[in-house]
Structure formats: structure tokens, C-alpha cells
């Protein structure tokens, strides 16, 4: 009896472990490059279709990386409906009028690659290089423009945020609030700055002799997720005392 119990404990689940890989990129149509986001800034939604015709299936999610790529090597083989959501881009799927479905349905088997194309709410670009000031602050120049021509998704620009962090995860999900600087706009004030070069400086005094990462996020009054669009992170060396 004791033996039976012990040996029962040692038995493995007889179902094969998930081993399929889904990999790919979410392409920003304004740059042609993968979209810049933050940790957990975009979720990839998977709805399995091969069981019960997809009815009653609990959707699975995994996060797209901050550089706009995604990779999950632990999925069960099957047919899935896949789309990215929650990011600062025109949604690919809507269920109320006007109903849109730009999701992709794929059989995930072995290594399956997918690419999605999205229109960001804003395109954020660097103008020139960040400048280190004598008082140990950093001044950057950037500009933001509309990433979509669809007027239903051209919301007012609400704020621009210069993020500072000690890692290249720098974003709204990871920044040092002693140095980062947010510029807020009322009403339509921010829209007037579309396409203009704007200049922002960090707050406080950055500690000497190390590398900081800076990045600019800009955001619209997007009616659902209110995420930022970003440019690429840049390292900046602050000289020692």
C-alpha cells in the first residue's frame, strides 16, 4: 500500500508539455520598424480555436517586449486567433460598431512566425542628440506627429514625458521620478505642437560618472488604454564630479 502511494506520487502528467513557439513582431507603420513600447505595454491575445470551435475558451495573453517583438516557446499545438491589444495604436479588433477584425488565425506548430502592422497614435522622433548641461541635467529635442490618418483615432495630445532611468527599460513603467519630467497640455494646446521640434530638460541633478538612459514618450487622450508612444532609448554619459 505504502509503495503504491509513493510510486503514484512519482508519476508524471502523461500529457505532452507545451513546446510550440510563436514568435514575431508588431510593426509600426509610421517607421516600418517594430513598435516601441514599455514592459507590459502591449499584450498579445490568443484564443484557441481548435477546441469547441473557440467557444468558452479563456483567452491567453502574453506581453510584447518593449522593443516590439514577441516570443513564447511554451504553447500547445493548435489553431489560434491572435492579435496585439492595449497598446498606443489603432485597435486591430473591435466588437461593437464599426466591427473590425484584423486578427490573424494561425496553426501554431514548431516555430510559427507572425507579423502585425499597426498605426500608432503618435510617431515620436529624436531631433539631434541629447545634450548634457553644466548643471548635470540633460536637454533633449524631439518631435511628434500623427501616426494615423483615421480621424476617429486622432485624439488630443495630452502630455510629453522625458523619462530617465539607469536601465534601457526606461519608460512609463520604469523611470526615476526624481529626474524625469512631464509636460502636460490642456485641451487642444498639445495638438498645436504636432510636427514642431520641442525641447525638454530633466529635473534635479543627475549623480556623476555613470550612464543614464533617456527616452521620450508622448500620449493622446486615447479613449481606452492611454499608453505612450515612444522613441528609442538613448544612453547618456554623465561625467564625474
Amino acid at each position, binding site marked *: 500500500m505504502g509503495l503504491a502511494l509513493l510510486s503514484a506520487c512519482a508519476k508524471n502528467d502523461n500529457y505532452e508539455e507545451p513546446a510550440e513557439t510563436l514568435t514575431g513582431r508588431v510593426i509600426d507603420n509610421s517607421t516600418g520598424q517594430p513598435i516601441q513600447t514599455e514592459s507590459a505595454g502591449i499584450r498579445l491575445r490568443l484564443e484557441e480555436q481548435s477546441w469547441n470551435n473557440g467557444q*468558452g475558451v479563456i*483567452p491567453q495573453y502574453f506581453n510584447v517586449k518593449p522593443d516590439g517583438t514577441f516570443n513564447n516557446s511554451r504553447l500547445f499545438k493548435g489553431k489560434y486567433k491572435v492579435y496585439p491589444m492595449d497598446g498606443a495604436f489603432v485597435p486591430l479588433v473591435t466588437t*461593437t460598431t464599426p466591427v473590425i477584425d484584423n486578427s490573424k488565425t494561425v496553426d501554431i506548430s514548431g516555430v510559427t512566425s507572425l507579423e502585425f502592422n499597426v498605426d500608432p497614435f503618435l510617431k515620436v522622433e529624436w531631433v539631434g542628440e541629447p545634450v548634457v548641461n553644466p548643471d548635470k541635467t540633460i536637454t533633449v529635442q524631439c518631435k511628434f506627429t500623427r501616426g494615423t490618418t483615421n480621424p476617429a483615432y486622432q485624439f488630443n495630445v495630452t502630455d510629453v514625458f522625458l523619462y530617465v532611468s539607469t536601465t534601457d527599460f526606461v519608460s512609463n513603467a520604469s523611470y526615476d521620478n526624481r529626474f524625469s519630467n512631464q509636460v502636460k497640455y490642456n485641451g487642444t494646446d498639445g495638438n498645436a505642437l504636432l510636427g514642431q521640434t520641442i525641447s525638454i530638460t530633466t*529635473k534635479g541633478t543627475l549623480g556623476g560618472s555613470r550612464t543614464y538612459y533617456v527616452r521620450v514618450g508622448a500620449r493622446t487622450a486615447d479613449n481606452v*488604454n492611454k499608453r505612450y508612444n515612444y522613441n528609442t532609448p538613448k544612453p547618456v554619459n554623465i561625467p564625474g564630479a
Partner: protein
Amino acid sequence: MKKFIYPLLILLCIVTACNKLGILPDNIVQDKDAFASTGGVTAYFAGLYNRLPIEDFKYNMNNGYNQFNYIPNINNLTGESMSREVGGASAAQTGYWGDAYVVIRNANYFLETMPAYAFNFNQSQVNQWLGEARFIRSFTYFELVKRYGGVPITPGVQYYPQQGLEELQIPRSSEQQVYDYIGKDLDTAIMLMNNTSEQRGRANKFIAAALKSRVMLFAGSIAKYNNKNISDPATGAQVQGIPATEAVRYFKECYAAAKLVETGGYALYRASANKEENYYNLFFDVSSANKEAIFMKEYSDLNAVHSFDLFAIPNQMKGKDGYSSYMNPTLDYVELFDGLPRNADGSLKTIDATTGQYAYYDNPYSFFQNAEPRLLATVLMPGATFKGQVIDIRRGIYKGDIAGGINPFPGSVSPFPNTTNPYANNPNIVPAVNSSNLPSPMVDLPNGQKMNAGGLSGTYGTTGGSVTISGFFQRKYLDQRKPVADVIVNKSFQPWMEMRYAEVLLNRAEADYELITAGQNDVDYRQDAYTCINDIRDRAGATLLASAADLTSINVIRNERRKELGFENKIWWDIKRWRTADAEIQNRVWLVLNPIYVAANGKYIFDKRRYEGNQQFTFQSMWYYEQIPNGEITKNPKLVQNQ
């Protein structure tokens, strides 16, 4: 032969057993017992009310209802309160679902069974009960719809296995259908019920109307402010979001329900002329003189207890179980109120705007001596007297020369940049030690006496970490008559005020203002809102609105609601239905107020800054709708998950 006897015996047993199965066991209460007498019905309702989802002193953000632990209460997510145990924002998804359908089923069972026994009672009595069951059902559906949007509406009592799975599994109705179902159910309850409750703590016509004003206000807010519209692809029902065109209808229903409550003789509590004492006592008075109490949940030492005093008590008065100081109102919240010392530009006068240096106050309480009475009844200030003791809160002692005034410490000037060690490098100040292990230092004063750098109750304490981290304690609901020996686990039984007339007035004023914004003028809504707000402000001892024209924005009414209903587990749901939570609470560090003793002149300065622990709170937009528990979707595949 013997071989055949046993099968025969077994057969005999089975056959005889079959005959006996028709007899119902005596030890299970049967319908005829429960429904044929008033006592039976009372017992049935005791079960229903006991399970009613009221977010009281036993509701927390992690586990939901009926918990001992009130420390992670939802007021910590809104900026009302902070606690050293709550380090960041949370979706507060408690997974309330299955328990709700138990209450709904029991209410439905009552509604279906009672009519067959109605001949035992007079019709008015039966109607009262049928109304009560509908009230309970509505209350419960509302708790679901405010979390999930559209949920399944059961057509009646379901039976398994008599009914097939396919029939039992019901898809979600649209969010609008659920609100309309509740509205209609409450209309019927209002029609059926009497003006007075059968017993204290049970529903009546006006309590149902008060609930309706709350529910319709929520429905209107969702219609107006929600932007995330999601439909069930299988049924087409819009399970998240309500068409904006419905908003006016809901706000009008809210207004009408609130006006109905007014006819029930309810009024704001004004038993005592001292406005501070009066507001404080409002939450403890269970007598019929309290006309403000609409729906109260009471406790008793023997039957139902909670532990609020244990958690909220200031450190210097804690009981033997050791808990204390978990409910610390933020300065963000305190600053909403009237009567605090301010500079000409409106900024809080911690720093005198004319000199740019700290302003002196004779003692900690002089900062608050002109504060609005409602604030003093809601929040326990440094230097306030409570249970015969002076609340001792100090962040440190300033020992330097003050001939040239005291200049601001880092992080104490607007916009209050985050600063983690503001006092560390200042040789003039001895801070209370920022550690849970070390006692804070004793400091020699010029008059030869010694003083502890930290206060008995904060901040960063004298003997341990159990002190306020914001500089304040919650006073609302904290029982000042409770002896220290009773400040222990499971020894609190002050009532929970689930619905009171002030909320109904605030519901009405908010609906009024939304109707003004929508261009409605069938009633003078502006004048009505003005009357409601001034009634509340007058009772609170706050500054009155000079005229109806002073209602310049919806925020006047929303802020009044925050002030009046703070620490009542309500504001979390308000900032969610207004859809303002994500904008308000974004990488936000709450403000605190540190009293600092100045050795040279024996006065106090107040240091306003962001919490030194630098804990940031961010509300994620995806939290406006909670996730349906996955286990429920497994049981009922027709449920679509929220996004």
C-alpha cells in the same frame, strides 16, 4: 440453497428501500416549515441578509467579503488613505461571482415559493417580503454589474440535474440589460413594500429607492464616461459599455428615486449643535433619532464582530494584541477640506509665501484649529485629543539657529519632487530614526529637558514601526468610548453605515449636474443641486456655496462626495465609474505632513512632501472592468471574458 439467499436479501432491501425514499428527512428544514410562519420567514431572511454583499469593515481588496483583515481596504487605492502594508496600486479583483448567484438563487426561490403559502398571512405582509427579496436580488446583481459589466440574468431558480447543462448555461446579458433589470426590479420592490422596515436593518420602500438612486447614477456614469465597448460575438450583447444615448434616462431615474427617498422623512443628522461631535456621532447612533441612517449593518459581541478599532487605533493607545496605525489619511485627502491655513495664492501654509521659509505654529493642533468640523471628525490630527490623550506625532526636532528663519528642506516646495532622504544631510535636524528596529534618539532641549525626536504615534516612531506614515489617523468610525482592554481582535461592533441620506443627496446633486450638462431643463436642476450641496456643507460646518452659480464644474460635487463619503469604501467605485482613476492615479506618490519641533522657540513647523517611501500608485485602464474568474468560464463556456 444458501448461495441464493444473499442475492435475494439484497433484492429485498432494494425493493423496500425504494418505498421509503419518498419520506423527507426530519432534519432538513422544508418549505412548509420555512414559509408557513412569520418565524420561518424571518429565519429565511436572516440567511439572505447575512449573505448580502455589503463592503463593510470586513471587505478587503485581495480577498473580498467577510475577511478578518481590513488592513488592505479599498480606501488605500483612491488617495483617501495609505498604509505601510499597501505598497502600490491594485486592480482589487476579488473574484466575487459564485457567492452572488447563491444569494440570487435563494432570493428567487423565495419569490417562487412564497405565493403558495401566502394564504397564511395578510397580503400587505406578503408584499413586503416579496419586495424585500427583490431588494436583496437587486443589491446583489448591482455588486456584479459594477465589477464585470453585463452578467447572466437567471430566469428563476435553476435545477440540476433536472435541467440539462445547455439550458443551465446562460450567456452574459448586456451591461444595459442588467442595469435595466435592476431598475425594474427595484421599481416593483418600491411598489410592494411598506414605508417602514419589519425589523431594524431590513429593507423598506425608501431603502429600495435609495439603492435605486445609487444604481441609476452608476448606469448613467457608465453610459456617459465609458469608452471601452466590447460585445459578445455569439449573442451580440454589449457586455462592456452602455450607449451614450441612455445617460439622460438613467440620471433622471436617479433623480426621481432620490426625490422619493426625501418623502420618507429622512434628513441629515443634526442631533448635536457641536458640528464636529455631531458628524462623528452620526456613525454610532443606531437610535430612531438618527434619520440619516438608511441602511445600516449592525454587529454584536455575541453574533457578529469585526476588528476595525484594532487596525486603526493610534500606536500610543493600542491594545494587547499589538496591531495599530494601519489607516492613515493622506494629505491629498486632508487638503480637500476647508479651514486649513493657506497663503494668498491658495497653497497650504507650511511655508510662508511672503518669506519663502517655514511658518511657525504654537503647537501641532494650532495648524488645524480653524479646520472644517467634518474634517476634524473624519481625521485625527497631530495634537488632537482622543480618548483623553494628545495624539503625539513628530518627524524630528530642528536644533539649528533660527535667527534667519528655516529654509525649505528638499522636496517640500511645489510641485514637491520626490525625495527619499530629505533630512539625512541636514546637520540642524535630528530625525526620528527611519527604521523599524531602532528607537528614535532623545534630544536635549535648551530648557534642559529631553524630548524624543519621534512622537508616540509617528511618524517613524519611538518603539517600532506601528505608527502613522502620513501624519494622520482615521477618526471616522473609530470608537472613542472603547477602553484599551477592548481594542483587541474581534472586539469591535460599531455599525457599518451602508446607505445614508447624505449619499442620496450627493447622488441627486450629481445627477442634477449631469442633466444640466446634457441640456435638460424640465426641473431647475441647478437650484436643486445647490440646495443638496449646501445642506451637506451646512451640516459639515464647511464654507457654503454663495449661490447656485458657484456650481462651476462637476468637480464641485465630486469633491463634496469624496469629503463626505471618505473611508466608507465608496470612493473607489466612484473614481472607477467616472473613469477618472487612470488619469488621477498615475505614478502618483501620496502627500504627507510631517510635524517638526523647533527647539529654539518651542514651536512646530509642518513639512509637506511626498511620502519618503516613494511608493508609486498607477491605476491601469484595463482595471475598469474586472476579469471574470476563469473557473466560472470553465463551468459555463458561454461566458465571454472581459478585456
